[in-house]
């Protein structure tokens, strides 16, 4: 029996963004990573092209994150050195690129100085040859000092730098233009604000073709539904021709997952919920897989088991 034709006729496509620069391109990376470019919904290759597969960025932070021991142990002792952690991510976990977050710069935490952060960037660039995503600590005022130094340290490497928000985008635009980096535009679970931030970037003279959107990320069970839907809606309107919303999207799954009860508390606190050793990474993996189906292009992940499980599905999805 013939099935009715239900193919969508998308008029546009998601922007293609390349991260990293090889020697010929003025950087030192062995390869670059390109995301986006799809002219269809995630994995629906019967009605459009998906030239690039979604990628996994290995989570690394300048100081050891406050994660449960069982999670840190699964990553290994390398977690205490950003350089070794980055190397392990690339060699053992098989990530496509590194996502480096300057947690230690947080004024309410260790309050590390911009120069210390820049040193970490330099060291990691020397230690691994994959492209780099660079985040500040999340405190706008502090990041206005941290990001310029980190950007400078990675000049010419075509990093993806996060994040430009309504309140600090001028600084981020200035450094990314000067040092030739790509930008992550951030809006907290708000599709209208997401568009607004992109408009601001454009008005500031930054090409939206070099932007990756960050809707902020919710851990599974903690607003996942909102983020899932915003990612879906952005992808859809981008395909329908809204050039302000056609950016690829990034999700910081690891950064959010190991803050919530289900991925932090063991059976002593959650009796009958299974060992955290198994549950934690699956909380990360299921969340990442869900966002993948919604339309995420870059997943920031940490636990080797979560990374490996999601990678296996990616292989099948892209067949």
């Amino acid at each position: 029996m013939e099935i009715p034709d239900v193919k969508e006729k998308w008029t546009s496509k998601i922007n293609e963004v390349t991260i990293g620069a090889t020697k010929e391109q003025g950087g030192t990376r062995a390869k670059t990573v390109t995301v986006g470019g799809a002219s269809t919904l995630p994995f629906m290759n019967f009605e459009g092209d998906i030239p690039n597969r979604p990628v996994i960025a290995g989570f690394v932070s300048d100081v050891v994150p406050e994660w449960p021991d069982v999670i840190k142990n699964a990553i290994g002792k390398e977690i205490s050195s950003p350089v070794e952690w980055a190397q392990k991510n690339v060699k053992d976990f098989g990530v496509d690129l590194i996502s480096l977050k300057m947690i230690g710069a947080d004024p309410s935490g260790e309050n590390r100085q911009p120069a210390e952060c820049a040193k970490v960037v330099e060291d990691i660039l020397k230690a691994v040859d994959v492209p780099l995503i660079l985040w500040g600590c999340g405190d706008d005022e502090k990041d206005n000092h941290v990001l310029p130094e980190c950007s400078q340290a990675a000049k010419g490497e075509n990093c993806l730098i996060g994040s430009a928000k309504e309140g600090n985008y001028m600084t981020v635009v200035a450094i990314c233009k000067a040092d030739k980096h790509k930008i992550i535009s951030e809006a907290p679970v708000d599709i209208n604000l997401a568009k607004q931030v992109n408009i601001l970037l454009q008005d500031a003279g930054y090409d939206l073709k070099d932007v990756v959107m960050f809707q902020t990320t919710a851990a599974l069970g903690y607003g996942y539904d909102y983020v899932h839907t915003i990612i879906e809606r952005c992808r859809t309107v981008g395909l329908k021709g809204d050039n302000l919303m056609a950016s690829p999207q990034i999700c910081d799954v690891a950064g959010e997952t190991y803050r919530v009860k289900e991925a932090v508390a063991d059976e002593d606190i959650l009796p009958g919920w299974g060992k955290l050793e198994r549950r934690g990474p699956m909380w990360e993996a299921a969340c990442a897989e869900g966002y993948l189906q919604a339309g995420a292009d870059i997943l920031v992940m940490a636990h080797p088991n979560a990374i490996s499980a999601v990678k296996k599905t990616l292989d099948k999805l892209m067949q």
Partner: protein
Amino acid sequence: MALTGMQIYKLLPKTNCKDCGLPTCMAFAMQVAAKQKALTDCPHVSEESKEELSEASSPPMRLVKIGPEGKQFEIGQETVMFRHEEKFHRPCGIAVRIPSSLSDEEALAKSEKINKSVFERVGQTLKVQLCAVEIDGAADPAGRAKLVAEKSEVPLILMGKNADAMKKAAEAIKDLRPLVGGADASNIDGFIDIAASLKLPVAISGKNLEELADLTSKAKEKGIEDIILSFNTENLGDTLRWLTLARRAALRKNFRALGYPALVEVTTKDAEEETVVASAYAAKYAGIVIIDNVEPWELLPIMVVVQNVYTDPQVPNTVEAKLYEVGNPDENSPVMFTTNFSLTYFSVESEVERSKVPAYICVVETEGLGVLNAYAGDKISAEKVVKTLNEQKVAEKVKHRKLIIPGLLPIFRAEIEDTSDWKEVIIGPETAREIPAFLTNNWKS
């Protein structure tokens, strides 16, 4: 799918006889389209027209019920492709397989584990909804079906390709209305016979969507209404594409042959991969996902994907406005307030937990709005906060009178201090993320 007035008009005698009480057949048709009249209010409408209308007005995806009256699992009647277009109606059910290779004892033990897989999370009950009993390969199909059926607290799916074995098993427990699973092109006649004679729902698979549509149409011709589309390919990408196409054909084109809920049987051996794959199907259009593993660490992530994706986006997510105790607080513990938007509350709660400082969280009813939206929309005020603190008798819980308020509402401080016993109002952080540092550094009772 609703018919337009014009489409209904074509089904009428077009005599303008006024016997329905309206001046013309067209006027009557418009009223039927607006659901203010029923087609049967026309005394002269033909039987064929009635049938055509009832066919056209039935939902594009059928609602299928599995299991005995009283504890049925209901799935289907979905209306949209994306949750933001309206909502997803009936949460995907997780089914756990009982392989025929298990001994009777092991089968019962697994069934018992399935019964016990019930979890409470954010005020909702999450559980395994179905038990999938493999029939092929069982020495005594009827015996195996009966054995599990007697102990199972959830409805059953019978899985198998062998029509003779299936018939024995289905007959043995037909009163429990199991789903008969495993029909395909090779055994369709036998399975149609089982489903039709025992009046049971049946799950049918095809080697592609075209063949699947042929097979469901064949079953329908034999009077079987309760059909489930079954997918058991090992290729995640293909299956997701088929699920999408089948759902689009049903919802957008009213294509009856695929207008049924879908079941996916996950067949990977690796438990972690199974979790992730099942989560993908749960997020994208599976009505039932069959998996092997019954460990809580595997079930819970999948269940919460379902819980989240099937949340109604039109209804603000709220928690009960009451006093919450995090980590056994005592009379010296901090007190803070926040709104009843669940995302706000759970962010605050999980950060307080992370801080390891036990605390009281007073939740103010704000109709499901976050702090800033509630303030802008006049759903929260200093007066309301004071009233809520009194109603929840917070002062009886602690010796001190210090109140931590959201950093986004510093303006409340003076009024709360002036109008209540809470004489020391401390302005807390603007975001939940900063709570642990705030409590560790700034809180002293």
